[in-house]
């Protein structure tokens, strides 16, 4: 079972997917239309590229930088959050315990993934 398929069935997860760092390929499972998943992939890739650039610049310009490499990011809205690690994204409900549980699971599975899963 792929990482995103496992994520998609976790409690509180609305949908999960993976996107290619280059090109337009993506796969997903969950409560999103195909077009929404395509858009989510484009958005998540753009933010991932941006955080990589920011951590590069951050560490090139400060001593003792704790973000030598950006491994992921989270955006929190009023009802939903987006959690991304490596090239895997998931949309989660803002219910107690969900974000922490999903993040912990993603960290265990994906923290060592330097490029793509």
């Amino acid at each position, binding site marked *: 079972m792929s990482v995103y398929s496992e994520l998609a069935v976790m409690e509180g997860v609305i949908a999960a997917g993976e996107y290619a760092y280059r090109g337009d390929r993506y796969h997903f499972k969950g409560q999103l239309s195909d077009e929404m998943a395509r858009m989510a992939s484009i958005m998540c890739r753009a933010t991932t590229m941006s955080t990589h650039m920011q951590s590069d610049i951050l560490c090139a310009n400060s001593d003792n930088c704790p*973000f030598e490499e950006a491994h992921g*990011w989270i955006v929190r809205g009023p009802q939903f959050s987006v959690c991304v690690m490596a090239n895997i994204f998931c949309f989660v409900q803002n219910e107690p315990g969900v974000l922490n549980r999903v993040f912990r699971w993603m960290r265990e599975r994906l923290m060592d993934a330097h490029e793509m899963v």
Partner: protein
Amino acid sequence: MSSLDNLIGLEGASAAFEFSQSGELTDHRVAEGSDLTAETLDLLAHVFVANIAIATMQARGWEKTTGQGGFYPIQGFTLVGFEWSTVGNGRRGVVLRNDVADFEAAYAALEG
């Protein structure tokens, strides 16, 4: 107790900081033993301002295009490093150790 004292009290917190709307550092606390500097925290503050602006653009576009609400207004952004993460909103941020990080508590404390 100030909101920065609340943030630095979170488990695994090594720094808490406050910044202006444009990202300049205005106040900070650094935990004992941490080697984070004001200069690094100032850069992180700018990271929050930049990413919250981009995420707001994404949330606006997403909601308009898909009709699905729930992302706007953006309440916060987290950058995940290997050992550390930094969680923030448009005014404050905190640096947390990943192995004990409680993101939900951090977001709740940021709102306070």
